[in-house]
């Protein structure tokens, strides 16, 4: 009896999270006039909304832009984050603690304070309307550095000394010798960085004006608010479905990693 109530409550909760998405997908295949009446399955499936959307906005191009920006940022964060994290975690040198405190401090610094000056830097460096404007500011990430520092700290001293004996350079030691030992950290940092980059809208709205360079969420946002959807709900919803699709596919494959990674952002504090 108790179990039945428990399952019923859980099922209602699960449906309240899943149903809106299913409804959105169904609505994107429904004729414009029918969406206001749609409950679940449309009377007639149509691809009209999608066809119209492809004619109106360069959504394919924006998908490529988002992929380029998110992957490059992620690779950059993994690379630089490992370097800094390794130095902070395994080496002792003057100024190490100061750098560590600076990194911790930047995590508590609200982004609202650097937003306007960073835009001005982009203008002055002539980076507005380039991929670089989206990638370069994201290349260093305090959270990634701290994760890598933590991971490299767990590697025994003997192993680090042994790696130095054959005279290989530090970069080789970091990426060839120790990276294979910290794969869970790499996965976590990669997922979080990629998702943050993929889902960010505020910064792209500020530094990208050229429609051909817009990221996917930015393009969909401007389409939804800009009146170009001309109150065409179906087209708007179709663009939202396409925007959600890549992340949902990735999520359904790497579900456990997504949940663990996201949970670890909360656990650091």
């Amino acid at each position, binding site marked *: 009896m108790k179990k039945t109530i428990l*399952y019923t409550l859980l099922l209602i*909760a699960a449906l309240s999270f899943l149903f809106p998405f299913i409804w959105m997908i169904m609505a994107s295949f429904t004729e414009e006039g029918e969406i206001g009446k749609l409950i679940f399955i449309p009377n007639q499936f149509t691809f009209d909304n999608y066809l119209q959307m492809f004619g109106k906005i360069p959504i394919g191009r924006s998908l490529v832009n988002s992929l380029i920006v998110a992957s490059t940022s992620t690779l950059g964060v993994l690379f630089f984050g490992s370097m800094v994290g390794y130095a902070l975690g395994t080496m002792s040198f003057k100024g190490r603690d100061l750098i560590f405190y600076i990194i911790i401090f930047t995590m508590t610094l609200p982004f609202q304070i650097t937003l306007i000056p960073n835009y001005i830097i982009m*203008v002055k460096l002539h980076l507005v309307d380039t991929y670089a404007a989206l990638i370069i500011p994201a290349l260093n990430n305090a959270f990634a550095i701290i994760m890598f520092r933590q991971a490299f700290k767990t590697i025994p001293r003997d192993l680090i000394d042994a790696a130095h004996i054959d005279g290989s350079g530090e970069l080789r030691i970091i990426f060839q010798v120790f990276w294979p030992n910290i794969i869970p950290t790499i996965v976590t940092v990669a997922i979080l960085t990629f998702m943050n980059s993929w*889902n960010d809208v505020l910064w792209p709205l500020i530094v990208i004006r050229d429609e051909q360079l817009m990221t996917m969420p930015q393009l969909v946002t401007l389409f939804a608010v800009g009146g170009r959807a001309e109150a065409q709900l179906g087209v708007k919803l179709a663009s939202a479905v396409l925007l959600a699709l890549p992340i949902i596919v990735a999520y359904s494959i790497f579900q456990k990693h997504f949940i663990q990674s*996201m949970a670890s952002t*909360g656990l650091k504090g």
Partner: protein
Amino acid sequence: MNTNNKILKNLSPYLLVSPYIVHFMIFIAFPVLFSFVLTFHKWNIISPLEYVGFDNFNHLIHDRLFWQSLINTLKFLIVHIPLQIIIALALAEFLNQKIKFKGFFRAAFFLPVIVSGVVITILWQQLLSFDSGLINRFLMSAGIGKIGWLNDPRIAMGSIALMATWKNVGLYVILFLVGLQTVPQRYYEAADIEGATHWQKFINITLPSINPTIFMVVILSTIGGFSLFIEPYIMTSGGPLNSTISAVLYIYKQAFEFYHMGYSATLGVFFAFIIMVVVVIQKKVIEKND
């Protein structure tokens, strides 16, 4: 080891951290300092900086729309945070029982967390629409009547907070679940012997044990709530009657609709200061309670 190698070895930590230092200087240290410089200037980016003393601060104090945007942001937090904690805690408690399909439920709760806020906002704008939204249609057929979720200035911010809760709650379910699993099982066993009810165990054992998680959730959702932007930007563009204009949306509008860079930077500095004060107060409260 020859001298060259030794020098290189002493230098290597600095070489490794140097990209971070350079990046920090350009994208954090300089912008923070420049923000403070901007607060004393009027600037539209194109013409030269014009020194205006404390004009920006004076303007800020009398800028009713800015204070309204702060109050709106607080309204959002006041609805969002308690709602989020209660729902997340309830769902986590359900999931912590011996049940089947745990993985499925967890994955379902978590789905909105990973999907872009843009998608969620476009979807909910439709669900909450006054005339043909799914929720109002449901309320109509239940005989309750339509609610102006996004049209009524008194509840529009509440509706946005409701949507944000729906989007984020899955993350906090997971965090609470981790917290619940750290509560020692023997406490419950001891309570069982005393014949405690489920509710008594929850109040006297569970809640005190997961206090740190609750406070972490409060701080994380406070910081998240203070950056509220895309939801009102897409859904209401701050309306009706400016009831949903958030502080970040207002800063954005000042900078990129009116090109008041100096004033916008002033708002940014002031708002960042408020955020830090609020978070520090919250942390102090936490330490006291620990």
